[in-house]
């Protein structure tokens, strides 16, 4: 992964040097950097809150599914199907533009977090459930053999192992959900996309604005991606000792 970053940076430097046609207006870039910074922080804030909500929802759903709690289990499955088979944008539009018409008015930021939590929850539920099911039955039997109750089994044996087994999928979901924050531009939130669009509309500095936009997302997502790969490697070593 690191190799690719190095190659990419070299490419970019090359383009910058050779591409006179891409002559960038650096004063413009520097002038509007703070606005992008603000947009980036807003994106992060909404993204993180949305992810936390999604994780909470997902964990509850996974527990319901793993322990086969009647009635709730079917509800959870229906929820997951609905959330996964509809676009986030429609969910956001429905929450922000549709609900007010029947009296439920949400602020844009609330709708954003709710939407991300709704969609993300279904993905997190699948990730957690896979983690739970990956805990070997033999571990559970070993726990039973020393007399652990169901509650103690869950607390000492199942949960810790399930959580660490879920991490790769959870990490991938985080990256996915952070990318989806770009859709918040559709419900009038001044995040990275809208900032770019407004600025291009006002000053026509397309290349500069777009570079800032792409850079913004790379700053958030590249480190996360690298951390995730590192984390996966560490956990694999913890589980299997190699």
């Amino acid at each position: 992964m690191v190799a690719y970053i190095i190659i990419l940076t070299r490419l970019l430097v090359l383009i910058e040097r050779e591409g006179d046609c891409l002559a960038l207006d650096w004063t413009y870039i520097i002038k509007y950097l703070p606005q992008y910074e603000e947009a980036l922080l807003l994106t992060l804030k909404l993204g993180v809150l949305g992810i936390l909500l999604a994780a909470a929802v997902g964990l509850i759903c996974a527990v319901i599914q793993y322990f086969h709690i009647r009635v709730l289990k079917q509800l959870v499955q229906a929820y997951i199907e609905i959330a996964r088979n509809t676009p986030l944008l429609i969910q956001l539009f429905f929450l922000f533009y549709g609900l007010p018409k029947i009296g439920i008015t949400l602020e844009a930021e609330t709708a954003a977090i709710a939407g991300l939590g709704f969609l993300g929850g279904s993905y997190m539920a699948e990730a957690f459930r896979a983690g739970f099911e990956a805990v070997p039955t033999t571990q559970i039997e070993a726990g039973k053999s020393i007399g652990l109750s169901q509650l103690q089994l869950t607390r000492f044996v199942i949960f810790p192992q399930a959580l660490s087994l879920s991490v790769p999928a959870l990490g991938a979901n985080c990256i996915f959900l952070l990318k989806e924050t770009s859709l918040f531009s559709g419900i009038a939130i001044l995040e990275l996309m809208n900032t770019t669009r407004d600025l291009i509309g006002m000053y026509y500095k397309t290349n500069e604005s777009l570079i800032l936009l792409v850079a913004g997302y790379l700053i958030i997502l590249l480190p996360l991606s690298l951390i995730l790969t590192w984390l996966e490697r560490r956990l694999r070593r913890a589980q299997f000792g190699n």
Partner: protein
Amino acid sequence: MSNEPVLLQVNNLTKRFGEKTILNGLSLAVPKGKVFVILGPSGCGKSTFLRCLNGLEPVQDGAIVLDGENLTAKKTDWRSVRQKVGMVFQSYDLFPNMTVIDNILLGPLKVQKRNKDEALQQARELLTRVGLADRETAYPRELSGGQKQRIAIVRALCMNPEIMLFDEVTASLDPEMVREVLEVILNLAKQGMTMLIVTHEMQFARMVADEVIFMDKGDICEAGPPEDFFTSPKTDRAKQFLNILQF
């Protein structure tokens, strides 16, 4: 026959899985302090039998009586039974998220609610006996298969069981590590622990057993002292089985 009291009595134990009968009316009496080794070809039901004894598998018919308590009664509290029946598995299954000492103390502290110092002392004694006193704070991933299995035995012993069940505990180990585990079991036998051992290690079986039980297709075909079984098996199936293992 022996004149020690019978610790474990199994009467006519029957287990079915759908249409298949896995255990066909087994009867067995294990006196206290004796070591019974169960031998037999793959699929004869010996592992299943052990698993029935600590409630991991349900039975359809028959009775299991441990120290006077009928385990096959409807209201059996398996949690308390499992404290009396220690079991060690082929896959050792130490909990990967805990250190060795935490693995061992989990049962005594959380299930038996014992005093921490007392349990810790016993745990350390047991660890020293199996030669792993210095690995107290290690995680399972840092240990070899043989070491993990010895810890698994300690973990079961720390619950102070009345009877120990061993389910093919050396089957997943490299040959070099098999010996260190078998030595632990031999020592336990010398100290008078009542044990039921399922194994493929014939020489070991011969050394450690007070009685050999030979199973095939859900039945007990033969039962008797090891010397009788290994030198002059009575049934054809047993003869076949032993021949297979002597090239």
